[in-house]
């Protein structure tokens, strides 16, 4: 019972944080310099692991689907499956989880350290607003970075699949490309981008929220960081289901 109450209280506080961010951006605009700084920071920190994850995911997908399709004489459709899986699901989800582990943890740890060393209180006592200073620019940067990283991840994954298809499976680059173009429609790309946009909001806002709620000194910072990564990753998977459902409804409406 206590857990349920705590969870509802946390959800309430988290929602209020999002409302505060929306209100802040609406009233005060946003510092483009700070947003750009955060975008560069997010990109620098997560691009290598996102690329590695994407390329190996694309390669594994090509291998697995090729052996499955081979039984039905449909090996040429590897590009079709790799492209669809990456554009609609794996690209946005894996990128979000990787960014959550790398950047979400960093954001949560940084804000949590500022909270426990009273720097957040100091901002308020000096007439500043921690939402405007710490949260809004990071959330906007997350909204910009995640779709960009997802785009790069999808392209990298498809190239990884292409490498396996041509070098290992005997499929020509032209066949792979045609199969990909045949399957992946513009709507699938838009679907992936919508998801990555939502995941950017989820990952960064949860990290900021956890950081601001941190209590209990250096031990608290560690716990907050872990909690931000676990909660952020879980939230991405849960949100992915509901977003997929919603997008299917819109697609066939």
């Amino acid at each position: 019972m206590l857990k349920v109450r705590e969870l509802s209280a946390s959800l309430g506080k988290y929602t209020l944080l999002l409302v505060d961010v929306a209100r802040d951006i609406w009233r005060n605009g946003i510092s483009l310099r700070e947003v750009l700084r955060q975008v560069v920071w997010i990109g620098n920190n997560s691009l290598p692991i996102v690329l590695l994850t994407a390329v190996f995911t694309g390669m594994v997908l090509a291998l697995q689907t090729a052996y499955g399709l081979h039984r039905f004489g449909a090996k040429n459709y590897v590009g079709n499956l790799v492209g669809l899986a990456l554009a609609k699901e794996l690209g946005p989800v894996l990128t979000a989880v990787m960014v959550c582990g790398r950047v979400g943890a960093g954001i949560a740890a940084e804000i949590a350290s500022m909270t426990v060393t009273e720097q957040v209180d100091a901002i308020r006592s000096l007439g500043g607003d921690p939402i405007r200073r710490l949260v809004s620019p990071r959330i906007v940067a997350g909204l910009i970075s995640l779709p960009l990283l997802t785009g790069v991840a999808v392209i990298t994954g498809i190239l990884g699949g292409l490498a396996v298809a041509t070098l290992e499976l005997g499929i020509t680059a032209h066949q792979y490309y045609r199969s990909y173009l045949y399957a992946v429609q513009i709507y699938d790309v838009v679907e992936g981008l919508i998801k990555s946009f939502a995941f950017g909001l989820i990952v960064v806002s949860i990290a900021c929220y956890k950081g601001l709620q941190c209590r209990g000194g250096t031990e608290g910072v560690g716990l907050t960081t872990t909690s931000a990564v676990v909660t952020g990753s879980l939230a991405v998977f849960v949100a992915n289901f509901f977003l997929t459902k919603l997008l299917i409804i819109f697609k066939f409406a």
Partner: protein
Amino acid sequence: MKAASPTIQLEDIHTRFGKLEVHKGLTFALQPGEVTTLLGPSGAGKTIILKLIMGLMPPSEGRVLVMGRNITDLDEAQLRKVRADIGMLFQGAALFDSLTVFDNVAYGLRERGERDELKIKQIVHERLEMVGLPGIDWKLPSQLSGGQRKRVGLARALASSPKIMLYDEPTTGLDPTSTRKIDDLIIKFARERGITSLVVTHDIQSARRVSDRWMLLSRGTIVADGPVAEVEHASRLVSDFVSGEWKDDA
């Protein structure tokens, strides 16, 4: 003759965290220009009192009046205006790690809308000079000693010329020389600028040196209150606390 109205008043303050009640009907007032030290065992809720006055958290019940204005019902934007008159030195100084000393001291000025960089520069240098740290503008907080960090924190708090100063453990962890410097600054600001000061400390020597008045907080209420010379000897609770014979069930 009409007595000056208090700079700060706390009226029947209750502060609760879940089932734990930290303050149980706390009431006191601070007069203009007075240096008051709040003593009490660890965990008594002394720092929370500073945060209540600063409007960083609301009380569960009761009213906090800053210069006659009830701040308990104000929203964040209104509180920001009230905070312009209050400076706070945090326990660990709470300097912003990523900013230089100059930008730390200038932070409040810029946040409060000052755009004239020449004026900012002049104020920052003046405040750093005041705390005895000229010429360290470019340093990062990580390059400063504990005493220097506290003094930069003090310069930052004083940058917007507050009428009230709140000090949270200003001398904790400092060597005797740095402690003395901080004490002298607290006295100087109160005497020369008429700043009303509330000091939270466990450092009894420092508390004797800087204070006009002591208050002892225990079990959620003020159990002793008065001029230092009077209360230190007249109150058994205070003398027990000062001599280290304090029992929390006192």
